[in-house]
């Protein structure tokens, strides 16, 4: 699989994503500077975490106008697989590739800790290696992860099974106490209607290797690989 990792000024998880796909999962990875306008020959695009453009104005608001985003939109509209993690999720929202916005965390704090998320829909190109309802432990690290959208849009994405991850307790209960940032309906990750664009606040690239003590995040990346029909690769890689 050929993966493109977009690098904005201020991205800081770009090399983590490169490392996971290239060194841990053995895929071809291309780093794409935000000035690029073409995404030729790629199977998937990663918008990594970080603080693109210093989070000026609103998180993701300036990055959305980077030259590369025109190409990312075209790629997504053609059905290309796009995953936005943390700041990448915020950029996807500002770019209109996913519905809604991020507000400041209700605590006003930057929160950096492991959280639990429940897989609400395991029949997607990003979660097919998970069980429905499975609880994943993945870290978050953000100040603006308080997902908000209007009630009509919320009803739509829920009805359409586009809510992919919700913050929950270790045993999978979706409760207000398990919600770290005030996110509407405990939403931690959503997908577009076509199922090829995912945004999630937790960082799976920080929990995809046994040496880090947590491999839950790897399931997301394996699901993406699997959606390209490479099950043999996947079985080889599990247990690496």
């Amino acid at each position: 699989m050929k993966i493109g990792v977009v690098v904005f000024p201020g991205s800081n998880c770009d090399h983590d994503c490169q490392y996971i796909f290239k060194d841990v999962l053995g895929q071809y990875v291309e780093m794409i500077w935000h000035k690029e306008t073409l995404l030729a020959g790629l199977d998937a695009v990663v918008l990594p975490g970080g603080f693109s453009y210093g989070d000026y104005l609103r998180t993701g608001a300036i990055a959305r106008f980077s030259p590369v985003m025109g190409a990312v939109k075209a790629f997504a509209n053609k059905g290309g697989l796009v995953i936005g993690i943390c700041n990448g999720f915020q950029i996807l929202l500002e770019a209109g590739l996913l519905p809604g916005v991020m507000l400041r965390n209700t605590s006003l704090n930057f929160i950096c800790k492991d959280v639990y998320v429940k897989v609400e829909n395991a029949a997607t190109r990003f979660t097919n290696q998970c069980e429905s309802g499975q609880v994943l432990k993945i870290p978050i690290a953000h100040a603006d992860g308080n997902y908000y959208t209007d009630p009509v849009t919320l009803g739509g994405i829920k009805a359409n099974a586009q809510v992919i991850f919700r913050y929950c307790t270790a045993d999978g209960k979706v409760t207000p106490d398990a919600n770290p940032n005030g996110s509407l309906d405990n939403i931690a990750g959503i997908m577009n209607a076509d199922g090829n664009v995912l945004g999630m606040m937790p960082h799976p690239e920080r929990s995809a290797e046994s040496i880090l003590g947590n491999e839950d995040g790897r399931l997301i990346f394996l699901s993406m690989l699997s959606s390209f029909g490479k099950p043999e690769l996947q079985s080889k890689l599990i247990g690496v």
Partner: protein
Amino acid sequence: MKAKIHVTLKQGILDPQGKAIEHALDSLGFKNAGNVRVGKYMEVDVNEADRAKADAQVKQMCEKLLANTVIEDYRYELG
């Protein structure tokens, strides 16, 4: 022409910063202060003599970038 632009959260959208400031004001003894809302103020010089054209441009700036109209309102003065 200079545009003075105010961007504020829509009514009904939770404003955690406003809430924190409200609590601080309360601690300071301003017991009658309430409903604090934090917004942004921006100034933009628009090199355009035609007022109607400048107005249309500033409106577009607000709609496309300066405000996220899902959660924010904007207003501006041109002078």
